[in-house]
């Protein structure tokens, strides 16, 4: 999320844009957007309609959440690239950047281990204390 915020200028320069999606409510999503100063919108799917329809729903964790994944979708809604990731590994942002610039044709983009820094961890704890944990009925 934050990485795509930092890369946003380069993504726009490559002719693309960004949008994020989670099952969080509007209030929680807006808290994330302002906290991370994200320049792109966050879509809210609290009813889990889209994550289910796209078969990217993980009902076993945190009251039911999205499976992490990255798509590049063209103006015809045609999927140009997809990476279905895991909580531990995700496609590298610079790989997606190279794809957007047309420099990664035919290449399988590598995934990198997700490393939550101390700042991210303490922010998560502070948010949980402030706004509570997610429930399936939120």
């Amino acid at each position, binding site marked *: 999320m934050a990485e795509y915020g930092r890369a946003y200028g380069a993504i726009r320069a490559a002719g693309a844009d960004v949008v994020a999606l989670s099952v969080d409510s509007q209030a*929680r999503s807006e808290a994330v957007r302002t906290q991370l100063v994200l320049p792109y919108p966050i879509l809210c799917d609290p009813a889990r309609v889209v994550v289910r329809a796209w078969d990217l729903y993980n009902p076993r964790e945190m009251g039911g959440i999205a499976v992490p994944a990255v798509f590049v979708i063209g103006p015809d809604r045609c999927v*140009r690239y997809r990476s279905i990731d895991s909580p531990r590994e995700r496609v590298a942002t610079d790989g997606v950047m190279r794809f957007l610039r047309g420099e990664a044709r035919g290449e399988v983009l590598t995934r990198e281990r997700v490393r939550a820094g101390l700042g991210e961890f303490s922010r998560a704890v502070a948010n949980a204390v402030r706004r509570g944990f997610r429930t399936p009925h939120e």
Partner: protein
Amino acid sequence: MREKDAGAVLYLRKEPQITPDVREEAPDFELFDSTGVAHSLASLVASRPRVLLFYRGHW
């Protein structure tokens, strides 16, 4: 009886839950963003390609 039949038809017509793959058309949807603005996928990708990030969400 009529309502039951309609329910059966709806069930049969239920869209399959499939993750769209490369070169496939992504199913359209419409959701509100965190500021209350509604976006369809079609409108989001109308002018330029979009990186669409599904993320686990807030703790």
